[in-house]
């Protein structure tokens, strides 16, 4: 009675059985890596806009406050995108004939909004409120990144629920004094650059300052599902 299988089956079966664990692990890692990659999350990917608005020029070099354009951030869930009138407050006087600004003038003339490409957008089943975050000492740049350095806007975080939960579970890692919320150049406290809070106490370390501020500002940092999925 002859052998049914070729001798090489011995080696093949040994490789596949012992290698199976590696293969499965490798696949799992690959899926994990893809899920975190910018290809999937669009993190750090600049988006094309109808007008190449530069936050670096306006917020960084000129020092315009975030609230000048994003007006409803302190009062509403949505931070607000500026109407064309806001752009025209300056650009009716300066760069009035620049070809780059033609779409802005066009929008002002025809009364049709500029169709900005949304960069930071959460899905519809998430109820996110800007105003509470601002009120409790979470700065703009904490979530939106170094906006004052961005020639073109890109998303700084993955916007995954895990990204939100990371902070909600440990708010002391990210909270800053309320006076610094709109400071685009704010750096967390370190030994060389300590940060002073409203009542004068100085901190050289984020955790210490964070714990202090969480108590001061009564930050509850809600984590129940219905907080955001109403």
């Amino acid at each position, binding site marked *: 009675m002859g052998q*049914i*299988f070729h001798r090489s089956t011995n080696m093949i079966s040994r490789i596949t059985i012992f290698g199976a664990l590696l293969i499965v692990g490798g696949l799992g890692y690959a899926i994990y890596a893809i899920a975190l990659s910018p290809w999937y999350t669009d993190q750090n990917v600049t988006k094309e806009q109808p007008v190449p608005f530069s936050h670096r020029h306006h917020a960084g070099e000129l020092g315009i406050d975030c609230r000048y354009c994003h007006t409803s951030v302190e009062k509403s869930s949505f931070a607000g995108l500026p109407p064309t009138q806001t752009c025209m407050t300056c650009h009716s006087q300066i760069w009035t004939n620049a070809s780059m600004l033609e779409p802005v003038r066009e929008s002002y003339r025809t009364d049709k909004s500029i169709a900005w490409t949304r960069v930071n957008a959460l899905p519809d089943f998430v109820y996110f409120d800007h105003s509470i975050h601002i009120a409790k000492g979470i700065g703009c740049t904490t979530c939106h990144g170094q906006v004052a350095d961005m020639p073109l806007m890109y998303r700084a975080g993955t916007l995954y629920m895990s990204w939100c*939960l990371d902070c909600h579970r440990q708010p002391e890692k990210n909270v800053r004094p309320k006076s610094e919320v709109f400071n685009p150049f704010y750096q967390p406290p370190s030994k060389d650059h300590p940060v002073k809070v409203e009542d004068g106490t100085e901190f050289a370390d984020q955790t210490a300052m964070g714990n202090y501020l969480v108590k001061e500002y009564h930050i509850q940092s809600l984590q129940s599902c219905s907080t955001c999925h109403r």
Partner: protein
Amino acid sequence: MASEGSPKSIAAVNQPEPLLGPGHTFASVTDQISSIVLTRPTTPGWVFGFAIGFGLLMLLNLVVTMLMIKGVGIWGIRVPTAWGFAIVNFVWWIGIGHAGTLISAILLLLHQKWRTSINRFAEAMTIFAVMCAGMFPLLHMGRPWMFYYMMPLPNPMWLWPQFRSPLVWDVFAVSTYFTVSLLFWFVGLIPDLATLRDRATSKAGKIIYGIFSMGWRGSAIHWHRYETASVLLAGLATPLVLSVHTVVSFDFTIAIVPGWHTTIFPPYFVAGAIYSGFAMVLTLAIPIRRFYHLEDLVTKRHLDIMAKVMLATGLIVAYGYIFEAFIVLYSGNQYERFMLMNRIKGPYAPIYWMLIACNIVIPQTLWFGKFRRNIAWLFFISLVVNTGMWLERFVIIVISLSRDFMPSSWGMYYPTRWDWATYAGTFGLFFTLFFLFIRFLPMISIVEMRSLVHETGEEQPHS
């Protein structure tokens, strides 16, 4: 039987019936079992049985499609009875599975020789029953395609399953049980598959049995590893027999509903599982031994012993019922008292009394050898017990849910045809798999029967 008084005949009378028919050798046992797979042609009877099973499987196909499209509203579940047939059937199927593992694993560790001819198909029954059971937790979800949320897989939401919930423990218990049972069954099959590989005449048979027999040579090292693996897996599977159905009972015990929230449930459920499991083994064994002429391998003594195990576990289940009534009395709790009265004379009372008849009253006939040895009656009892155990789960789940603490929340449960169709469909899955099993795999463990020939050969005097 005729001459009393002579020592030889007393010894003959006191000798228990043999576990193996007379005149068997290694070769005859191997021939008998492997020929069912390899040389016996596919009979019209098998085709007929398989066709029925397959037809019901197609019904299951239809039901699953409807569930995906329309959702679980097609079943009769409403508020307050949010659990209906789906959970009744889940517990019923899982319970049935426990007997197979008990026969394979626990009886192996206890060196009980009578397990040898029934353990293969009993373990197959377990695996198929667990597959049928597993369908229900998946299907009863609102979004079955999100079933993987039940598993602690890393995800971008940093969200883990609720580890405090027995519904999550179920996921671990049932998947562990399925994996270990499958492994145990497969490891036990390897030498038999090698036998089939060596005897197969068709090329396809040789290759397929060859692949699955994993290169078995029958060498001493292989046999040593086989024995070690069997004992290890039996050791792993043994606690599962007790723990899996305990965890399933926790689905109910952690709730506060009267009739659910009782500490008797874990042992009561496990005993009930073994009860219904042995009933199903009998339901399968009796036709198999008849249609495949296996009467001298699965002997009357086997059926007798299984009937006794059924009786014993049935008595434990009866104790559970009596104790529930005792708790009602002893606690003086008005809700507990109402729960019992509602079972006895409420709207589902006929079901409760059918349950008492099927599970407690009728099986008491098994005390008498005359009834245990009547194969037709034994088959009937096995069906009665299976029905009774299904009714028990119905009584526990539906009756307690339909009327709990607040009368304003009371409501009835009426199963729809989709409920029945899902249940029938899982029978389709079970019987399709089981018919495929008896056609293509050795339904009795050839290895173990050979060792039984060896052992009984030593005991029987040469005649």
